């Protein structure tokens, strides 16, 4: 069986760039069908030469997308201020149970390698 050739811009799956996520919750709040689950906490970083005062930083604990609910609208990707979410044309991730369609952060991060570059998208 040959794999179907799909265009680079296809909305197959959503990938996550974990280090870009600031746990701002914008995507989870804009999602029309509530399929994005994010958990995080804040950590206090001590003052150093660059920063004169202690400061707090959001740390991501969980990022999951439930593709059994996702309607592939792409609003989360549009709304992300830090480009932490991208479309990937990868689409072969059917599962035998609904739970398998919830992709946790490591699986979402794994899709990033399949997301097209800007040049590939515009080709």
């Amino acid at each position, binding site marked *: 069986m040959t794999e179907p050739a799909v265009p680079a811009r296809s909305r197959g799956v959503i990938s996550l760039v974990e280090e870009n996520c600031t746990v701002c*919750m914008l995507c*989870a709040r804009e*999602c029309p069908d*509530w399929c994005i689950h*994010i958990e*995080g906490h*804040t950590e206090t970083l001590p003052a150093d030469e660059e920063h004169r005062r202690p400061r707090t930083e959001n740390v991501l604990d969980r990022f999951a997308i439930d593709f059994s609910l996702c309607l592939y609208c792409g609003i989360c990707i549009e709304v992300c201020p830090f480009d932490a979410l991208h479309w990937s044309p990868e689409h072969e991730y059917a599962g035998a149970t609904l739970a398998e369609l919830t992709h946790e952060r490591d699986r979402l991060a794994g899709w990033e390698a399949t997301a097209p570059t800007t040049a590939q998208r515009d080709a």
Partner: protein
Amino acid sequence: MSPVVDAVQAALGDAVLAVVPGFGPVTVDVDPASWAAAVAAAAGAGATYADYLTAYDELELGFALVLHVTTPDASDHVLLRTRVPRDRPQVESVVGIHRGLAWHERATHEMFGIGFVGNDDLSPLRTQPSLGAHPLRKDFVLAARVARPWPGEKDPAGDNGRARRRVLPPGVPEGWGDQA
């Protein structure tokens, strides 16, 4: 500019309230009493393909009804739009011009409660007839969103991972779900 827009303007005169170029297809705002006449004029000028009909809720301004028509070769796209008042939302049906819009008029009636005079079958497509409400009206409360925890309510900077001030999801009015 557009033969279809010109034809609608020639046929309706003052009943064309505005022609809005926008970024995409031109939008022609017409008086609700001339809705069917506008659709007929557009069809007479070649826009015989009706792509989509729907509405949106503008609260105290009423409901905007929008129809996308085009020539079959897609050379001339036009959006026809009219605004009907909230207390008497109805227009003349255009099923006599575009038979394919029967489904859209049914759906628009179901979701927004807009009447289409002359369309005999406005029975709901998705909801129970006993529902007695129109789900896409902005005053329709999305009650399931009150019962279910909203993933967007979490806030890493808040106490216990929740926002300090309770954030309500879209579709849930202030005061709902306060007991949660």
